[in-house]
């Protein structure tokens, strides 16, 4: 028996076609307006970082976010690193810097996590962290596209990249927030959960070539943008686990070659009693991977001193 319907198929098709056309037009116009506002709103991480005309910007993941205090680094510094910020993101940051930026120096917090699975890393799923730059950086978006079935739609839609942020983009374009120095520090020490078993990173895949490629890109971009690139490696207590130590050493070996061939101030493999003391003292850490506020102050002062002693003589880089 045929089912009854109060509307005909042609009526429904007409209404849905009208709706689709309206949505496409709305999406295009809305996307155009938001993209324009985004460039000069503090939702845009580059705009936010450059708002106070800093000379130094810190890029990197949560280890750099919680480990490098701009006030202890000295000068006008801004910490633009974020939870889950990958090496691909740091490259995108430099790629999209405006021509009239005030920066002289980039401190990059090298994080071995970037080399675990390349762009397939869990970190790339952090849409909030990634999306602000993916909106304007097609190269980053292409990488991301491989990770998310929705991303292709996101790439062609005007509104979707701003989902949940449209109001903020417009508001913070209208009234840019005081960006401060970007530093977020952790307090105290979070004990590890003894019931969970540690995973052996040594059994995971080899570090993908694309991560090293992104590192090379970062170095090249810094040169092209006339910026001094300083690479640091905020300490982890995790380095004490032998399997991780082995993997870390393997990745560092290749990374060191990239740093050697370019004019980079490499402060990743510094052996010092300050670092040893930090790693040995759990009260200076928030958890196994992140320094807390006190630890960050000590580490940042140490890095500032190293920069003055070892990187000070480096002139601004010219294009390689």
């Amino acid at each position, binding site marked *: 028996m045929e089912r009854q319907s109060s*509307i005909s198929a042609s009526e429904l098709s007409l209404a849905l076609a*009208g*709706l689709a056309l309206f949505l496409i037009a709305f999406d295009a116009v809305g996307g155009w307006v938001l993209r324009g506002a985004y460039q000069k709103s503090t939702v845009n991480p580059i705009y936010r970082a450059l708002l106070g005309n800093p000379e130094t910007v810190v890029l990197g993941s949560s280890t750099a976010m919680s480990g490098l205090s701009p006030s202890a680094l000295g000068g006008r510094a801004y910490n633009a690193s974020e939870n889950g910020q990958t090496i691909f993101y740091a490259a995108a940051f430099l790629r999209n810097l405006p021509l009239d930026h005030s920066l002289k120096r980039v401190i990059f917090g090298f994080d071995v996590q970037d080399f675990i699975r390349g762009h397939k890393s869990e970190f790339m799923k952090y849409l*909030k962290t990634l*999306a602000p730059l993916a909106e304007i950086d097609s190269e980053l978006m292409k990488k991301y596209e491989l990770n998310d079935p929705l991303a292709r739609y996101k790439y062609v839609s005007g509104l979707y990249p701003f*989902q949940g942020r449209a*109001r*903020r983009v417009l508001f913070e374009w209208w009234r840019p927030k005081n960006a401060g120095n970007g530093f977020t520090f952790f307090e105290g020490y979070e004990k590890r959960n003894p*019931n969970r078993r540690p*995973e052996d990173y040594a059994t995971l895949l080899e570090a993908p070539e694309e991560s090293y490629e992104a590192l090379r890109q970062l170095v090249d971009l810094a040169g092209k943008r006339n910026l001094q690139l300083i690479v640091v490696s905020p300490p982890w207590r995790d380095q004490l686990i032998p399997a991780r130590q082995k993997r870390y050493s393997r990745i560092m070996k290749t990374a060191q070659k990239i740093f050697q061939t370019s004019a980079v101030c490499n402060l990743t493999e510094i052996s010092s009693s300050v670092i040893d003391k930090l790693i040995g003292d759990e009260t200076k850490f928030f958890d196994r991977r992140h320094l807390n506020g006190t630890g960050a102050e000590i580490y940042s002062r140490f890095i500032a001193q190293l920069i003055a002693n070892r990187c000070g003589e480096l002139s601004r880089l010219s294009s390689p």
Partner: protein
Amino acid sequence: MLFSAAILFGLASKPVRPWFLLAASLAFYGTFNWAFLILLVAVIACTYAAGRFIQRHPHFGWQVPIWTLAVMSPLLFYKYLIIWFPWMWESFIPVSTFDLEGYGTVLIPVGLSFFTFQCLSYIFDVRRGYYPPERNPLRFGLFIAFFPQLLAGPIERWPSLSKQLFSAERPTPDMVLDGLQLLAYGFFMKLALADWLGFYVDAAYVNPAANSSVAAFLGLYGFTFQIYGDFCGYSLIALGSARLFGIKLIINFRQPLFARDIEEFWQRWHISLTRWIGDYVYRPLGVQMIKIKWLPKRAQESAVLLVTWIAMGLWHGAKVPFLIFGLIMAILFILNGFYKRGRRRRPRVMSSLIGWVVTFHLIVVAFALIRAETMEDWFGLLKAAFAFSPGHVPFSGILVNIFIALFVVMGVDAVRRFWPDYRLKNLYSRTAVIGLLVIWVLVLGHDDGKTIIYFGF
């Protein structure tokens, strides 16, 4: 993917449509994890075999417990045994390759308890002789694996769903429009309400005892609205998806937050599970209990309620807060029974209003147990809320989003509750509503796509 599948379904010839749905459903489940697709097929095969065996050997003793145990074994293993005996999974269960903490996490087959319950209802009904077992294993497979209801229900019964699935009628334009409307509203409830609320609720449960009163209350009440928006939103998405294939699934939520007593609440919340528990736990237990002659009738009723609700609590997981949740619900049901027996007249407006306020707040407090990791967290949050300590929640546009979305959701529920016959009938106004909801979700919806909370159960 859903829309292209619906178009292909409409274009396919009638005899092909059920098999197209079966292939699409299995492929859909396989996208989560191909290894677990094998598990799904194994559960389906076991249930199919159970039905056939019961028909051929109706007098074979102990067959129902044996088949029940066989069908439930993956559920028991994943939901309870790996928690009670963690060494069982450490050596041979798939573990996610990498997570942020650097620790392995167990992958649990999504929708496991929902499709297990659907299989069990089939076995029990066949045993009771309500209908003969299906002969065609592929047709039976489609009944269990039909993708809109596979992940988190509604838990369907064989007679209503199989008839629709195998008649394989094309959806009417009305059904397509209904489907699109349900999908749009479901996504609205999930992305514009539940996921934004999750932002405050998650923050409140990080260290429940350390919250200010405002933050604790927001976490407490926010979770009830979050889980409602999340699960009801998901159910509407499931209903809407099924309508695009010409299938009407059971409505799982009927304005539960307007219930006037606890019994009415559970007649309106997760209806398919409540009916399942009623049909296969509560009533059979009641029948057995009547046989215990020395026990007074009220004690019998109370004992049945207690066992039923403890089972319901433990269905959520093998944790003490879930057990306490079940106990609280049982006590509330028992008290509600006493109250109703003492009441002679029909409830008046004022008593209905008081009943609604009391029920809502009891639900809020009890539901916090589902969210709390431990009893300490639950007590901590309640203590923080009622300590009336100073402090505030940072006001942001997110709160405005939440309040507007909540106003819309509760407004729609109020209209459906008090004017149940009211429907938008005009095609163009219905299309405009769909458009508005899509724009809302696109512009103001949460962008992080949190997992449906009930997937975890």
